[in-house]
């Protein structure tokens, strides 16, 4: 009797898996189609040694894996809250990492003693002023709002 129940349970779970897979395909398509997000660029303190950076290095920096710039200036990472549209746009279009993946990577490091979280700022104006005033700072901004006090980092 019990094995029979188990078989029925497994069969119904199989159906559920198929349904889930079908359901998964639809939103994935929709997400790929929308790309009208604001143009976001990486910005750094004006004294930063170069004005371009590879995507791999940028991912390592925002993944909190790289402690210093070439020349030993400590890197200081600023981000907005996870649910800020600019954070999502920067993660997805510039880093090409989903924001929740970034969060998981930070959590894994912080709760195993291997790293720290980036500093969260409350708004885009605060991001611009903190990056402009902190040596070694890196963050991001809307391309239309970038000012003279920060340096735009181009992706190599």
């Amino acid at each position, binding site marked *: 009797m019990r094995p029979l129940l188990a078989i029925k*349970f497994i069969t119904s779970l199989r159906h559920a898996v198929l349904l*889930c897979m079908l359901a998964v395909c639809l939103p994935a398509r929709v997400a790929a189609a929308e790309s009208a997000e604001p143009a976001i660029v990486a910005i750094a303190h004006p004294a930063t040694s170069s004005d371009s950076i590879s995507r*791999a290095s940028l991912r390592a920096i925002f993944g909190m894996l790289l*402690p210093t710039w070439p020349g030993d200036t400590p890197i200081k990472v600023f981000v907005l809250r996870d649910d800020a549209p600019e954070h999502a746009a920067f993660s997805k279009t510039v880093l090409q990492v989903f924001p929740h993946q970034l969060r*998981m990577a930070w959590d*894994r490091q912080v709760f*195993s003693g*291997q*790293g720290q979280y980036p500093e969260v700022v409350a708004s885009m104006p605060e991001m611009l002023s903190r990056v402009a005033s902190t040596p070694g700072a890196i963050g991001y901004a809307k391309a239309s709002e970038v000012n003279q006090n920060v340096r735009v980092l181009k992706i190599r």
Partner: protein
Amino acid sequence: MCVYSRFASAASLVVTVAGWLLAAPGALALDLLDGNIQVHGFASLTLVNTSDNNFFGRSDDRISKDYSEVGLNASWRLMPDLQVSAQVLSHRAGGTDDGQVRLDYGLLDWTALSSEEGRGGIRLGRVKAAYGLYNRTRDVPFTRPSIVLPQSIYFERTRNLTVAADGADLYAERFGDSGTLSASFIYGQPQTDTEAAEVALVGLNRPGHLDSNPAPDFQIMYDGSGGLYRLALTTARLKLRYKPGVGDRLQAGEFKLTPVILSAQYNAEDWSLTSEYAFRRTSVSDFGPFFYNSKADGRSYYIQGTYRLTPQWEALLRYDVYYADINDRQGTKFAAATGQPGFTRFAKDWTVGVRFDVTPQFMLRLEAHRVDGTGFLPVQDNPDSRALRQYWNNVMLQASFRF
């Protein structure tokens, strides 16, 4: 009395943390010295109900509250390439862990080399062991895919053997255009000084004790396209010797455990697919006639899908399989040799679950398991093997906070 006071203290901590978070929703964490010192923590409480058998305390046809986790950590970046961090943890888990506060990790991390292409360094002290995808943060509810990790690989029963090691972790990472390749080699002393680790291997009420040699643990991982997919290989070698006590029926035996774990994960925007496969070769020898001396070729695997329905809701489906010995899957030979039920040598666990992130700090989870076999159940919660049932259900509800 003691258990109740521990429960009360854990519960009061949860309430305090909750109150604090509600009072100051902006203060996610404690940052001192311009963010160079960070303090974080978490707390969880879980209710467990099983149809048969006990899991995390007396859960058979009743509700057990004997599973909780409370952790507090601090990290201090002394210099850009030097960080000290430590975490204390209270982990209550039925008969296997009474929730005594322990040092979970405490280490000095020196990133000796770093450039835009990669980094390398050493961590010294009590370091978290690399073991599959989830071990390093196995007690942190927010980093897990479910209330309990797949038990075929992340045993609660023998967790102390693989949770951390006192020694060194040499690591190297290369940041490539297509992904990050990382390697970690740990050499250190596993924690065998707790009763739980001993009971899982030699059984209840033994007068002797187990000692371990320093053990090597190696992991290589490839994190492709910023975490779109992750591939890992982990291998470790544990050697434990039993020192018999006065009037002991067991002789000076030896355990050798050499697990190899293959891990793969694919992360799309709304869903993740994860699978891990473990080869667990174990050798038990020289314990004498009153023990099951054997060589076994254990196998474990699971396949798990998670789907983010909305940013706050996530659904989980998993099938998890454990065989103590692939050459004796049903435990027939074991049953003939020991008189114990054969179904204690395997477990097949179907799991469905939901996660609800009420806020970024407060998470609720509900999970149901349908299990065939009792292979991963600890003897401390199930001392009478005649009372075990092969088919059983398990429903769990968990609330957790973090800051």
